[in-house]
């Protein structure tokens, strides 16, 4: 928690600002959303770390995938992820987004979520308690520090394969591709 180190602020303000102002989009993708209200309200107060729920993807830079992802929800998740502005991070809750968890053989859930959208952080636990969510937030800080939280850069670089996987899983997608094939990614600016 190096929030009040002025020198770091002066050296890289963008990174520090990204770390201490994570606005999480309030989108209940799965069963884990029941853990978010206690995180926000009095007992575990996420606002201490600058994490507050944002109403729309445009205002957010943190996307919490809470719990299993059904095929129908994946369409909304991809759409929301693509509507979020650029330095954006995603955190997967529990084992279901990793490899399908206990729904590993269900016809209606998505098994490996990181085949469709990049995930920066995972939290163990079938539904992780609020303390685990704070561990994820602090873990995300270290990732941002070491510039390893580059999910959105991976998404832009390998967009064709992500898009192909999405079409394989969901059939035809109504929205046009986010990055044109011709547009080569503009470097790794943080």
């Amino acid at each position: 928690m190096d929030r009040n180190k002025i020198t770091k602020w002066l050296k890289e303000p963008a990174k520090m600002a990204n770390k201490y102002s994570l606005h999480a989009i309030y989108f209940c993708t799965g069963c884990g959303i029941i853990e978010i209200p206690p995180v926000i309200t009095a007992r575990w107060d996420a606002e201490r770390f600058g994490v507050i729920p944002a109403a729309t993807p445009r205002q957010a830079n943190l996307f919490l995938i809470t719990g299993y992802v059904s095929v129908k929800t994946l369409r909304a998740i991809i759409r929301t992820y693509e509507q979020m502005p650029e330095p954006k991070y995603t955190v997967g809750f529990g084992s279901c987004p990793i490899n399908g968890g206990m729904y590993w053989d269900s016809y209606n859930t998505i098994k490996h979520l990181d085949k469709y959208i990049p995930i920066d952080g995972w939290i163990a636990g079938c539904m992780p308690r609020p303390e685990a969510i704070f561990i994820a937030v602090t873990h995300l800080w270290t990732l941002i520090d070491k510039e390893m939280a580059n999910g959105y850069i991976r998404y832009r670089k390998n967009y064709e394969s992500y898009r192909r996987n999405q079409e394989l899983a969901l059939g035809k997608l109504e929205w046009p591709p986010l990055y044109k094939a011709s547009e080569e990614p503009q470097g790794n600016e943080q």
Partner: protein
Amino acid sequence: MSLEILLITAFGGALFTYFAGKASYKYRNFLAVAISSALVPFVACLYGKTEEETFYYGFLGLNLVLRLNMLSWFFAITIAVVGALSIIFSLSYIKGREKTDFYFLMMLLVNAAMLGIVLAGDLISFYIFWEIMSWSAFLLISYNRGPALAAGMKYIIMSIIGSVSFLVGMLSLYVSFDTLNISQIAPVISLSSSGYILFILTVFCIAFGIKNAVLPFHTWLPDAHSEAPSPFSAVLSGILVRMGMYGFLLIFYVILGLKSFLGLGRSLYSFHYILAWIGAINIVIPTFIAMLQNDAKRLLAWHGVGQGGYMVLGVALGTKLAVTGGTFHIVNHTSYIALLFLVVGAVEYRTGGIRDLNSLGGLIKKMPVTFVGALVGACGLIGVPLTNGFVSKWLIYKSLILEGHPFLAFAALIGTWGTILSLYKFLHNVFLGQLPEKYKDIQKSPFTMQLPMIVLSLVILVFGILPGIPLKVINAIVTSFGFESLNITLWGITSETGTLNTINIFSAVLVAAVLSWLLFRLGAKSASVSQEDSYAAGAHIPKDKYHYTAEFYNPLYRMIKPFLRDIIDEFYYWIASLVRSLAGSVRHIYNGDVGYYVMYIILFLAALVFIQMKWKVW
């Protein structure tokens, strides 16, 4: 001599274009534009002169006189400019329609008649030009056939009532002073009894009130404006309706003179205070009715009625600031209401006659210049600083507050917020939001339509930032009425009770805008995105269904809708139905069968013989 030439060119030009039209429409278009735009410099170079010349001797024993002073020049230049712009606008607007020669003839005739009214030196010629104007306006309103005929009929009935009351006033003036020359009547009339002055005032107020759509007589205006072709409704709402205001100014301050007008009746029941109250009510109710309209032109028409209230309020209040504000508001209102009607005309032209606010949207991407015109016009109508509407409203409010009429000021200020709500609804439903599928490929409005809009927008902004230019002219008018003059600077008014300095406001807004633009550029570059990529909670955006326009202010509608029924309109229709039922009963008597008529004659003769026999009356 020059005034005669002016009128001859105006009227002769109209006829000449009609016959040129028979030859080929190219000549007609060129000639119409040439004549109407030739009038502008012609009138402009008459600035400052005051002359009086009789151009016809012995019309029923009176000679018709043309007179020019600062007031008539002020109105003449507005008429000429608006007339020229609307002719240029209607070049491409009227292209596909039939009877276009008749249209151009009537448009030029209306302009000429209005010039005639303004330059008339005596009431007879005033009346003649007044009638020409009313009739040509009637023919133009019902140009579109269909519902326009009913609107035209409603307009012409009320104009006839107005003309008749004008005639009555004129004849009574002639009987008592046996001259109708304005400059001769003015000194004499203030000597006559106040009862006679009150009669003259009410009669002329009815005549000019109907034309200026003051509250009890406003019902013709919304129908007439929404059915007339857009270029003409720009002229109609811009300057033709304000002939009523010219009439008010003429009667109150030129003929009657300042002291006798303000002296009528005690302070609270004085004529001008009651008129001021009528003006105030005239601001509030039509502006909120405008909010409920779903047709773009009706919305603007109701604003025409509403803004007329400011002028009546300013002129009737009688202080030097208020009268300056009132007259300045006339030319301001002309500029932005004409601009807004031209904008609606351009949208109508491109979307094939659609002006329903619920089926348009997102036109800003396709018609940017029209949007800029609409934005500047709306800001002018609302009175946002840096536009001319603000300056005239500031003058009126300052005089209202300092004279101690807070409730009048309150009514006027609430009118402004009603204007904001309804004009934002107009801007949003037509230009902002989702672009419907069927307007995907409409082009920009043609240059002949964009030119008038750009000119009017410039007029609004220039008069807003440098109000000294028009205020100098209006100050001359007001001092000619008898008020002491204000010290006008190029950017507003300096007085110890509160100066207005628009250059400060303009420079402050400019610097602040540049500052915030730099702050905006500081951030990371933003990617432009199509309208399909908007937030819909992750769902796909349906085509043509993602646009919120119907009942735009629904919560407010439900609360104030019962108060906004147009009772006066229903009252007139009730009278109309009464007359129709009366006519129905009379038809039983005159049912066209000759036998009945013969029977009536015989019965009548028998009755006469019987009376003679019984009472020997003769």
